[in-house]
């Protein structure tokens, strides 16, 4: 016993002073002797189930015992210390009150409160090591490649203890992340909108400010300077009206251009020419042309509007390139601009347009063509030859709206070869213009299967029909089931031959015919 204790103490001292203690996975496969048991236990923390007590044979030590001491009263020869869960604690406690080389104590192992000898302790430890129930206390991992097997022996420690429990619960993390995301997005969007609005307000204020600075000098130029003087204005003179530091600002230029364009719309004669001269002198025509190559359609259209208003004929080539743009706004404005500035007097660029022509475009072009046709011969008939049906239809409309009676015969010549949609448009034109045409056109159309075509030709018949169309109308009347169409036919018949019409009504007692007749006779309903 004494030898054993001496060895233990010496070994313990050595171990306490060693710098690194490594127990690799491979080095401890099993504990064999008491030394290996003691060495192993000296490095371990608590081993579940295993506890230690010191047994003292010298009664002098009794007074130093702490709580949980057990004193054997029978023979007063030894005393047992309180329980320790770690072997290193045993030695540390023992060192407090016995010389280090004292050999009057020995370690008692207890397994689940039952005293056992070192062999049983050894077996217990080997068993626990094999099952992985206890870990090997090590400071250096020698075998870095076998992480998984080593990790198996690393004691589990809950991340919650270290404050990472938050991330370990996926649901909480996801919900929190979503909330945070929402808050961030909300704040970002609001900030963006607030900044956007603030910038917009600032821009509006600047616009007003610039407009005030522009109106006065612009009026001065227009009233005090001649067109030639404006063209030859020096830079100093120009900057006396519009300061150089303002002219370099894009917003100022934008406001000035807008003001020039708006004045151009309202003014006439010499003032218009002065505005155009000023526009060029300020080199805004270059800006307008540059806009045509912008990637943003609204900038391109703005450039086209400026070219149109300022009659920048030198930009014709660039504008022509945009006539067939895929962007509706660009090609609409390009055609409108070209109509205005084009030196050539035909509508070939419009005729050759491949995209369908919308009514919006037609409305814009009509306004320009109406203005131009008094100054130029536009060769409207070229539109009849377009491969684009919408362009052809527009051509027929132009004949009607502009009252181009001279083109009616051309339309009549084409009538038989065109589609029913075009026939409807043509008949409408003939009706409005009121020029009598070959009645065969109308009578053939009355006999078609297309109700819209029949209706249009019935209406036309009432205006420009003759006896043959009247006959055709009487022929189709009995077979017409549509109330509206019957009303139209009867109205036309009344117009063509009132006598026959009245006779017909007299002898026919059908309710709807009488109702229609009353309708046609009512003076309040003449345009209904």
């Amino acid at each position, binding site marked *: 016993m004494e030898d054993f204790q001496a060895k233990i103490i010496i070994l313990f001292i050595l171990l306490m002073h060693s710098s690194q203690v490594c127990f690799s996975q491979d080095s401890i496969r099993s504990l064999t002797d008491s030394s290996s048991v003691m060495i192993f236990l000296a490095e371990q923390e608590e081993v579940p189930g295993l506890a230690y007590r010191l047994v003292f044979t010298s009664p002098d030590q009794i007074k130093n015992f702490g709580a949980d001491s057990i004193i054997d009263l029978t023979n007063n020869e030894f005393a047992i210390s309180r329980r320790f869960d770690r072997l290193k604690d045993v030695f540390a406690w023992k060192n407090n009150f016995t010389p280090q080389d004292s050999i009057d104590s020995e370690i008692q192992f207890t397994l689940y409160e039952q005293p056992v000898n070192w062999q049983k302790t050894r077996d217990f430890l080997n068993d626990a090591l094999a099952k992985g129930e206890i870990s090997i206390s090590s400071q250096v991992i020698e075998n870095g490649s076998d992480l998984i097997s080593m990790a198996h022996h690393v004691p589990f420690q809950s991340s919650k203890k270290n404050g990472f429990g938050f991330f370990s619960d996926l649901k909480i993390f996801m919900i929190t992340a979503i909330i945070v995301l929402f808050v961030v997005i909300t704040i970002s969007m609001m900030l963006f909108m607030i900044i956007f609005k603030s910038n917009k307000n600032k821009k509006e204020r600047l616009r007003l400010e610039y407009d005030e600075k522009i109106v006065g000098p612009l009026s001065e130029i227009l009233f005090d300077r001649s067109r030639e003087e404006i063209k030859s204005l020096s830079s100093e003179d120009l900057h006396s009206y519009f300061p150089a530091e303002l002219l370099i600002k894009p917003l100022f230029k934008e406001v000035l251009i807008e003001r020039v364009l708006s004045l151009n719309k309202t003014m006439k004669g010499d003032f218009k020419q002065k505005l155009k001269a000023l526009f060029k002198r300020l080199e805004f025509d270059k800006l307008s042309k540059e806009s045509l190559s912008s990637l943003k359609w609204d900038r391109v259209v703005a450039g086209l509007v400026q070219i149109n208003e300022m009659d920048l004929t030198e930009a014709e080539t660039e504008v022509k390139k945009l006539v067939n743009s895929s962007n509706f706004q660009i090609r609409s404005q390009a055609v409108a601009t070209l109509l205005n500035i084009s030196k050539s007097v035909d509508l070939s660029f419009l005729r050759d347009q491949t995209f369908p022509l919308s009514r919006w475009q037609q*409305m814009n072009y009509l306004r320009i063509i109406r203005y131009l046709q008094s100054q130029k011969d536009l060769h409207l008939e070229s539109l009849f030859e377009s491969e684009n049906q919408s362009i052809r239809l527009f051509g027929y409309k132009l004949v009607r709206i502009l009252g181009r009676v001279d083109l009616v015969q051309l339309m009549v010549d084409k009538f038989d070869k065109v589609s029913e949609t075009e026939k409807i448009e043509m008949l409408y034109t003939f009706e409005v213009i009121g020029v009598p045409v070959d009645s065969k056109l109308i009578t053939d159309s009355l006999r078609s299967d297309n109700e819209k075509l029949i209706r249009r030709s019935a209406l036309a018949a009432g205006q420009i029909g003759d006896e043959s169309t009247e006959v055709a109308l009487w022929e189709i009347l009995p077979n017409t089931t549509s109330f509206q169409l019957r009303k139209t036919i009867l109205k036309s018949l009344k117009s063509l031959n009132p006598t026959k019409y009245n006779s017909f009504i007299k002898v026919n007692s059908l309710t709807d015919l009488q109702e229609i007749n009353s309708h046609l006779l009512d003076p309040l309903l003449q345009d*209904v």
Partner: protein
Amino acid sequence: MVLSALEMRDQRRKNRFADYQDIITSPIAPGVSILAPAFNEGATIVQNVKSLLSLHYGKFEVIVINDGSKDDTLAKLCDGFEMELTSYAYDYEIACNKIRGIYKSRNRSFNRLIVIDKENGGKADALNAGINVASMELMACIDVDCILSSGSITRMVRPFMEETNRKVIAVGGVIGIANNCDVQDGTVTKYRIPDSLLGRFQVIEYCRAFLMGRMAWTRINGLMLISGAFGFFRRELVVEVGGYFPKTVGEDMELVVRMRRYMEEQGQPYKVSFVPDPLCWTEVPEDEAVLSRQRNRWMRGTIETLQLHRVIKMNLKYGLMGMISYPYWSIFEKMAPVLEVMGLIYTIVLISIGDFSAFYFVALFVVLYLLSILVSSFSLLYEQIAFNNYKDKKDLNKLILTILIEPFYIHPKVVYWGLRGHWDFIKGKGGWGQMIRTGFKKSEDKKNLESTVNS
């Protein structure tokens, strides 16, 4: 939010270059028949019709349909506009209740006005009566008490005129809130928010639903609803599909869905467009009882329409409308109150069985609340940037406060009213339950239905 912002941006850019004055007198512009049903509007009918007649447009007519009013609506019209009974030959192209008479004015100043007097049949029936008389290419269905701005027709007509690749079949407009606002010559000149919380809530709703919701749907051509108070349609197509269906309270939505169905079934490319400009205003109900009836009706209308056209649900044949619009309306509009209540019941069940996590509940609640605020705030800011009608800082503060309390105070009421709508639908309130349960197999079934009834 992104889609509506893109659509609004494009609309505003286009407006920069549009000369609306041109449309007013252009012979190319289409004619518009304005249909205005009137029931017991004697107090304001003359003033309302005068404002309609003064709209700035070249080719239009105003057709007022007196839907069997019990007051002096017809008498006021006849006196106010020198109307006389005519011998109009009326064609019941679309079935409607009996027409008692059609009136025109002997005063040429009111030449555009036509008054139809008929037996009472409801708004849809009155509109059908008006459609039969309308002679223009487009028709505008409005509420006679709505305030229209003088340039409203020119703006609404533009989408019809612009498109070439697709046929624009209908255009919807925004219904602004006129409560507490100054109105002059048919236009709101000064915007103020309503005094009541319910009124302010409806302002927020207007921003959300019109400026954001419908703009976004228009962007992807998925709009299924145009307000019955201000909508433009192609007359020919409306007649083709059989006009309004008078047996549903959601006749406005039902017509749009049927028109879309028709175009899909015919395989023709089309578009339902939307104009976000403030062109039309109305007084919204600030009384809870009236508002609850309105929301009840809207819910029933939604359910009825979805039921009638359930064939299109998740049906590829109906394109985006069947695959996205219909499911969206079904889940987020029709079933929303039910789903919300089910969530509430589920929460109560969880609490009672002890499987309730307060943490998750609060977290989820916070998420949904933040989402609600996000959408509403964005829509309000959106209005500020796009139109900036509500300039007063105090008004804006009140609106922000309304946004914050809406989920707690008003939304539960809206859910309740929606549930009542569901319940009333199940009870069969509104009639023609069997028809609605059966649904329209094809868009033209509505015309066949009328021929069956009339035979």
